[in-house]
């Protein structure tokens, strides 16, 4: 987060007091192994993650909550914790490896939670709403969750694994208008942008095109990898396909900061590849006039068939 996802870190630090979030960085943390390593060497990958879990357990002051803003980091921490819980053999092997560094981890000791999960479910929409001074009225946003946060959901934290709504509700609490779209949990391409760009470009185009079709002014993410692919590689993708998509991609923490009245610069806004300024100019100072209380439309026979709706 300190390099590629600096805006994520800056915006998080800028809003943490507003949402009463006390953060403590794990000292001497190591790379989680990202998405690939688990399938390369299972035990080594878990040991790598286990080390972070053990360090967190040893260093944590008055908390058992361990949070990550990155989808892959979060998933790896949660996966190792869950698999060590289920598989006593794995637990022993990982702990043997950790013992070499004088560490040990008892699975379940840390509660691994994604940052969005903490914000939505612990801090809560009401507390967030109470902090809003500059509602994001008029801004249409596509909430993009990516594939790793809501699945496999070891501790049943999310309302749906295919079509979640937690971030949509958060963005609505900020005054923005979340659009309905089908690609909320589709893959951004992950590291394929480096290994096999053609594959990633296809996935990126689909997401960016889908968000645009749905009427979104910008895409909101919760993961540095997703942000990087959709933002930085959007430019590459445009070159590759000779297209000219201009859909900005921001972190949910940046939009929280805007709604909380922080300066865009302090939130890392302006560092994105696809300029978010035109989209953000749409935020209205005044609340839009609420459309007259919708009267139940009296259907006329011969109309289209009624739509079932989502309840």
């Amino acid at each position, binding site marked *: 987060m300190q390099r590629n996802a600096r805006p994520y870190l800056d915006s998080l630090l800028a809003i943490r007091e507003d949402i009463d979030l006390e953060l403590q960085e794990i000292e001497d943390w190591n790379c989680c192994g990202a998405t690939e390593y688990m399938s390369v060497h299972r035990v080594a990958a878990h040991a790598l993650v286990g080390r972070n879990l053990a360090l967190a357990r040893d260093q944590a002051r008055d908390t058992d909550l361990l949070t990550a803003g990155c989808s892959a980091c979060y998933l790896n921490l949660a996966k190792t914790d869950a698999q060590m819980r289920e598989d006593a053999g794995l637990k022993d092997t990982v702990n043997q490896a950790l013992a070499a560094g004088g560490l040990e981890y008892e699975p379940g000791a840390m509660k691994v939670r994604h940052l969005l999960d903490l914000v939505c479910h612990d801090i809560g929409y009401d507390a967030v709403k109470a902090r809003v001074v500059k509602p994001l009225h008029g801004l249409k946003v596509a909430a993009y969750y990516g594939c790793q946060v809501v699945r496999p959901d070891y501790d049943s934290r999310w309302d*749906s694994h*295919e*079509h979640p709504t937690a971030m949509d509700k958060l963005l609505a609490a900020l005054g923005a208008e979340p659009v*309905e*779209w*089908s*690609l909320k949990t589709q893959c951004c391409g992950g590291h394929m942008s480096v290994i096999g760009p053609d594959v990633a470009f*296809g996935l990126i*185009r*689909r997401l960016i*095109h*889908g968000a645009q*079709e749905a009427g979104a002014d910008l895409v909101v993410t919760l993961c540095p990898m997703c942000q990087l692919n959709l933002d930085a590689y959007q430019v590459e993708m445009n070159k590759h396909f000779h297209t000219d998509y201009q859909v900005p991609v921001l972190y949910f923490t940046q939009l929280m900061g805007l709604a909380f009245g922080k300066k865009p610069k302090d939130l890392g806004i302006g560092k994105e590849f696809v300029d978010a300024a035109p989209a953000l100019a749409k935020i209205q100072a005044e609340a839009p006039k609420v459309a007259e209380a919708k009267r139940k439309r*009296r*259907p*006329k*026979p*011969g*109309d*289209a*068939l*009624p*739509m*079932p*709706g*989502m*309840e």
Partner: protein
Amino acid sequence: MAGQELIEQDIHEQQLTRVVVAACSPHLHEKTFRGVCERSGMNPYLSEMASIREHVAWVHTDKVAATAKAKAIVSGTVERVLKNDPLEAIRVPIDAQTLVVGGGIAGIQAALEVAEAGYDVYLIEREASLGGHMAQFDKTFPTLDCAACILTPKMASAGAHPKVHLFTWSEVEKVEGFVGNYTVTVKKKPRYVDEDICTGCGICVEKCPVLVVDDKFEAGIGYRKAIYWPFAQAVPNLPVLDTETCTYYIGGKGGCRACEKFCPTVPNSIKFDQKEERVTLKVGNIILATGWDLFNARRIPQYGYGRLANVFTNLELERMCNAAGPTGGKVVLRDGQTAPKRVGIVHCVGSRDRNYNRHCSAICCMQSLKTAHLVKERTGAEVYNFYIDIRTPGKEYDEFYQRVLDDGVHFVRGKVAEISDIPFDPAEASRNGAGTLYIQVEDTLAGMQRRIPVDMVVLAAGLEPRRDSSEVGKTFGIACSSNGWFIEKHAKMDPIATMTEGVFVAGCAGGPKDIPASVSQGSAAAARVLNYIRQGELALEPVRASVLEERCSGCRICNGLCPFNAISFIEERKVTEINAALCQGCGTCVAACPAGAIQGTGFSNEQLFAQIEGLLRDVNRSHEPEVV
């Protein structure tokens, strides 16, 4: 010589006073062997069964240890039977009136069978008309005869039968009593239309200016008025007024009143001030045919129902195919006009899926095949079925499947991953046109991923237990399985009866069934009831709990525990009483009573201690009788 005869012979020749049969569990054959004893002049309750099949043979592989265990069980049972008392069956008279709950095809069938035999039946239906789900269907598989053509004559017979007393728009609120002698309280919801005066002319419906989406009968794709008939062939032929949409009720009282104004009857049939009524009925037996609810397809958001306009449920398609339905039988997209050229039918939506329901809904394969056939016939569209397995075990069902294959319908074996309105790339978009839905599926026969572009998707949403089945079960004193279907007395040998005497289950209330099976169960339940009625009285197992009043402290701990509502508290004497006809001898209260004031007949402390001693006796080392 058959086993039973051997036992009879031994009883006579050896002058036996007790019998132990070491065989299966008492569940099925206790009655058989008690019958043998009774025929031989013994009191039938002086026999016992030692269960060495379920408790030994079926669950162990170590033969030596298993044999030792079997001997111990037999020894325990022998000690126990010595302490058995001769008991007399409890006899209760059977009221000849019957309650049938649920006016779908199973309930109608049951009611008609009982009524035809000459006995009074009260048929209770929660909705405003008889008919149930079958009334919504278009054609029935595999013969494709029209559902209404075969159902409405039955509805009409039930409505007109002098022995069938119809309560529609009504629910059972309370059930008291026991087999042969139930007292049932029925709540009649206000229809706001006087049943005795209304002639069913329909002018009120015609004049009502409020049109609303009909979520019930038309499954959400059609409209009705605020005062409406549930459907054209409704029985009884009476409209019902919906206070949630009627201008008179929502716009402050006094608005509109068009229905009242135009009602031609004298006195006026519209009764805005009609109140809920309660009716008390006396019945001997109860048949529950409460049916099923459709799985809510919104619960699988990746299939898009509720988000993507052209994703439909199977029930919506039934209404759409129906000539009397909202589209006049035309298969069209949500715009109400365009006929689809490519249609995907997704099987097992909410069924056979560990995330939702593990059960197979039994009817959706055939229903989907029928839909495929009808859509193909009416639109000429390319039709794709996405299935896990095709299950067509009924009479002439597989022949129908073959016919649909011959129609040229495509079958892709694989569970659909998602249905999306977003093409993968511009090439896919331009190939398939705007508005295309993409079905992503792993074709497990070809071993490859497929994306099938279609205009319309039909989700074969599964059958679920009624959402309120557990409360309904409690009202009638019967249990639901963990997935919510009512539990039958024996899944194979007694699928109609329940553990509560005099309460029977028919149709989908006990699990998903097709129409022939539901009709059969309706008839079967009626046969069981008629059997009880003809007997006039019923012998009940005397294995009962009873309260020793002098020991009962009136603590009432047992009062709420009885699963059969057999326990009541007598305020004057401050003691608890157990209704012997209602008690099923389960023993829950016996175990719970802190004062030891409740005794289970057949399960006295004396009997149980004797059994334990028998079990612990070292029967495996020595066959010599113990000499004291």
